[in-house]
Each structure stands twice: as structure tokens, then as C-alpha cells.
């Protein structure tokens, strides 16, 4: 058994070049702006960050080990709890992986329901991002506006799946039950409200003098470096890399839908923020089309109650609100996976944090962390 290397203790004093000593300040896990239980230690030269250490794992539940001992339909409930802001998107990746392994054809209606719910979930997730991002910067009002709109989306989710957040709605080969009868009408009226809501927050926040001052040119990361770090989603696209799983490897019915993908050029905090605003608008367009294309029909293929995929390995991934969420599933032919590894996008997006922080002010630390839009539920698993 290999020995653990000795634990290096973080340096408590750094003598800086002008004769002073830097202060190590501990931010989190109870700090109000670390988006959950993330913890970082910052070395400060007055207000400037000269070094940073990230600590994760406060929410580690051993999910991946748990998966190995649950049947697939039970794992769906655990997936809800990974990225707890975009639950439908998580579920989708898991059922896609199992379906790919079992070579299942999913009925069209189920696919459309999935896409609609996932895109609505994307909007909900981005709304949470916009609200909390503004809150990190001291703007109180946008968070109230965005949470109001998110609540409307969650009400629709509740009508569909029975739960606001932990849905357990997607199934291997389809979805749990058909949507409510007036689903299209509800979605259409919801989309109108969301459009107005996003416009409202956009006008209030995006081009404001103080907001732009705080975000422009902060934590710039270029495309090559971003890709090197494994950043995905809005963080990668803000740096000008045109990579979106929905386009590069279309899954579900995304190849039948017409949409655009916002790509940034500056790679700074403002781009990462604004990209998500535009993405939420694109999601509205996607949902509109999906609602039009959706036709009545079956919502579930015939699968054994307890799915038993054949032996094999599969890698399935999808474009989550936070990035490229993937599942690597190794099956030995049993009722539970032999190994189920999750690639959480937030985990990778968090990695370059130290590089991004150094040279910025303490006040920027929360803004930079906010712009990466992490959810600790999936970082720690």
C-alpha cells in the first residue's frame, strides 16, 4: 500500500518584497459569498490577493461509491442531488448513459418533454446565477427578481414531476408520467413572463456603470488556457472557444432544434455573466420550438422494471447549465453499475481559481468565484 505523502501545511507568513508580511485570510466554508461550503485561504498584501488555496470536500457524500450499490432507478434520485440547481439536466445524463448502453430507442414525446424541462432548468439555473452574482456584488434587487421568475419555473416543474427540485422524473427509456394536459399553454405563458423577467434584470444590471466597472477585465482567461484547465460551459465559451455539447455531439432531439450559442471574446467576468443571460434567451427559443414540435404519443419504451444493461462501458455527456456534465458508466451486467463516475463541470471550472484570483482584490474574489457559477453539490459529490 503506498504511503500518503506528508501533509504540507499552508504557509502562515509570506514576507513580501516591500518588507511587510502578508495576511492569510480564511474565506468559507461559512462565508456568505462562497456559494455553499467552499473554502479558500487567501494571502493578502493589504487588499491584493497574492496567493490562494482552495479547499473542497465539505459536502462529500461518497456518491460515486453509493451508486455502485443502488439499482439504476435509485441512482436517478441521487443524481438530483449532485447539481441541485439543475436537477433535470443531471437526470438526463444518467438515463442517456443507460439507454446508450442498452441501445434503447426513446419515444419522441419523451425526448421532447426531456428537452423542454432541461432547457427550462437551464433558465432557472442561470436565473439563480444572475441573482447570486449580483448579490455577491452588493446589488440586492436582481436576486429577488430572478428568484421570482425561477419560482414560476419551479411551479411548472412541480405540476409536471410533483417536486420543485428533486424531481426523480426521467426514467430509463422515457419519463415517469405524461405532462399535464395544458402543459403547452402553461409553458408558453411562462416563456413570455421569463422573457420579460430576463429583460428586466438585463436592463437593471448588465450595462450599469458600477456593474461593468466591477466585472470588465476581471479574471481574464484565454481560450487555450481555459481548455487546458478543462473548463466547459459558459466559462469556456466566454473565452472564445466554440464548444457546446448540444452542437458538437447532439443528443436527444437537439439536432432538430434551431438555436444559436453565444460565444464571448474577452474571457472576463462580464463575458461569463452576459453569456448566461444570452443563453437563457436562447433556451426560451429552444423551448418554443420543442413545444411546437411535440406531438402526442407514448412516453416510455418497454424496459424491465429493474434495468439490467449488458456488460460494457459508456461515456455519456450533455451540456448542463454549468458545462459539460458527463457520466462514465462501467457495467458488469448487473442491476447496479460496476463503476459510475461523474464528471462534474463545476469541479473543473473551480480548478483554475488560484490563477484567476492572484493579482485581484479581495472584493473581486467573490465576484470571480461567482462568475464560475459553481455548485458544491457536484464538486464534492
Amino acid at each position: 500500500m503506498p504511503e500518503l505523502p506528508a501533509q504540507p501545511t499552508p504557509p502562515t507568513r509570506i514576507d513580501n518584497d516591500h518588507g511587510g508580511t502578508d495576511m492569510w485570510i480564511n474565506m468559507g466554508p461559512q462565508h456568505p459569498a462562497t456559494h455553499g461550503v467552499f473554502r479558500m485561504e487567501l494571502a493578502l498584501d493589504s487588499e491584493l490577493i497574492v496567493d490562494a488555496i482552495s479547499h473542497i470536500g465539505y459536502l462529500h457524500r461518497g456518491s460515486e461509491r453509493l451508486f455502485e450499490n443502488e439499482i439504476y432507478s435509485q441512482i436517478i434520485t441521487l443524481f438530483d442531488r449532485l447539481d441541485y440547481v439543475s436537477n433535470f439536466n443531471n437526470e438526463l445524463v444518467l438515463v442517456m448513459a443507460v439507454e446508450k448502453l442498452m441501445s434503447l430507442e426513446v419515444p419522441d414525446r419523451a425526448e421532447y418533454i426531456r428537452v423542454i424541462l432541461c432547457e427550462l432548468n437551464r433558465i432557472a439555473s442561470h436565473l439563480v446565477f444572475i441573482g447570486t452574482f449580483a448579490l455577491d456584488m452588493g446589488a440586492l434587487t436582481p436576486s429577488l427578481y430572478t428568484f421570482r421568475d425561477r419560482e414560476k419555473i419551479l411551479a411548472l416543474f412541480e405540476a409536471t414531476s410533483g417536486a420543485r427540485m428533486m424531481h426523480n422524473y426521467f426514467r430509463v427509456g422515457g419519463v415517469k408520467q405524461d405532462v399535464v394536459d395544458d402543459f403547452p399553454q402553461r409553458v408558453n405563458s411562462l416563456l413570455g413572463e421569463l422573457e420579460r423577467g430576463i429583460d428586466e434584470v438585463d436592463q437593471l444590471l448588465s450595462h450599469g456603470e458600477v456593474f461593468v466597472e466591477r466585472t470588465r477585465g476581471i479574471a481574464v482567461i484565454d481560450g487555450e488556457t481555459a481548455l487546458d484547465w478543462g473548463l466547459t460551459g459558459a466559462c469556456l465559451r466566454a473565452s472564445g472557444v466554440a464548444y457546446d455539447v448540444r452542437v458538437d455531439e447532439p443528443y436527444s432531439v437537439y439536432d432538430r432544434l434551431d438555436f444559436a450559442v453565444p460565444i464571448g471574446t474577452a474571457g472576463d467576468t462580464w463575458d461569463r455573466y452576459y453569456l448566461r443571460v444570452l443563453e437563457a434567451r436562447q433556451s426560451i427559443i429552444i423551448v418554443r420550438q420543442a413545444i411546437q414540435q411535440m406531438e402526442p404519443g407514448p412516453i416510455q419504451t418497454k424496459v424491465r422494471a429493474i434495468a439490467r444493461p449488458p456488460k460494457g462501458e459508456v461515456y455519456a455527456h450533455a451540456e448542463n447549465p454549468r458545462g459539460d456534465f458527463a457520466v462514465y458508466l462501467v457495467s458488469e451486467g448487473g442491476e447496479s453499475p460496476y463503476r459510475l463516475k461523474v464528471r462534474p463541470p463545476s469541479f473543473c471550472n473551480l480548478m483554475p481559481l488560484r490563477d484567476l484570483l492572484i493579482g485581484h482584490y479581495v472584493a473581486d474574489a467573490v465576484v470571480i468565484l461567482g462568475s464560475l457559477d459553481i455548485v458544491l453539490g457536484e464538486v464534492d459529490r
Partner: protein
Amino acid sequence: MTTEEQGPESGPDSEAKRPAPITAPKGRRAPDAPTVEAALTPSGEALAALLPDVLAPFELEIGADIDEVVCRVAPEHVAEVCAALKSDTRTFMKYLRLITVVDYEENDQEFEVVYHLYSLEHQHKMVLKARVPAADPALPTVTTVWRGADWYEREMHDLFGVVFSGHPNLVTLILPDGFEGYPGRKSYPLHDYDEW
């Protein structure tokens, strides 16, 4: 948690009521189960044809899983193979999607370290695999190739005890400091607790 530490409720009486701890996971392996058939896309075929050329100096074993090219290499060559895959213009595997470990300790006394790679330019995806002995799981780090490998390797070191030689900062990432054992391994007791 042992029985003695359970507090007032545990005792000879409650001992009988408590269900027996689940020891064996449900139906994890099914030796008679069918195996999926590989069906590579044209771009996958192209990549599979390309790989022996790109990775000429190394011993390879190229296969396929459902729709992905699988390439097995010796663990000591992993870093070099990855560097070649990333820098060669024919492959350009610039995006490291995932690194993980699969525990085959029970049957093969081996761990399998799996690298999922993707090339944005060519839209090629592939899986790189290396088997390391479970008794001494060690292989070179790929943080020199992709910086994004950093936390993956630290996580695997935490959970599986795999040592990535050359990693700049191989310390605990997601487990508490001083945690003993490797909870990712199948041999680590998962159900050694009582339902409450």
C-alpha cells in the same frame, strides 16, 4: 460506529431488532450477461486507424467500446502518450474530459486508470486506459500535459490511493485531512454501519 458507542438505545434488546447489515451489494456482477457490441462512427474508425501511426513508439492495444476508440497502454508510458496525443496535429486531444479509476481488485488485482480525451478540432473522442497493480498503484502524472488533470489526480489519490508520480501537490482534496483508508475502493467497507 461500533455498538458500544451507540448510546442508550443500543443494548441487548435493540440488538435483536436491528436488521442485519447488508454485506453483499445487490447483483453487482452478472457473469452470464451479454456484452454490448461496438459500433464505431466513421470518424471513430478514422481515429482508430490513425492511432498506431501517431503513437508509433509505444505498445498499443486498440479496441472499441460502443462508440469510442479504446486504447490501452502501459502505465509508465501514459504521460508520454498523452503528450503525443495532445501535441500531434492529427489528433489534437486538447480537452481532457475525465480521468478516473475503475477498481478491478477483486478479480484481477488491478486498477484501471481511464482517460477520456476529446479533440475540438477533429471532433475525435477516445479513451486511454492503463492498468496498474492494486498492490502498488503508481503511474506518471499528466498534469504536465493538461493542467486540468490536477484535481482529478488528487481525488483519485484520495479515494483509491493511486500515486501519480511527479504531481506537484498530491495532497488530500476531498477527504478530511488525516483520513485513513481509501473509500473509493471496493474493498473499503461501505455498509459497515447500522440503519437508524
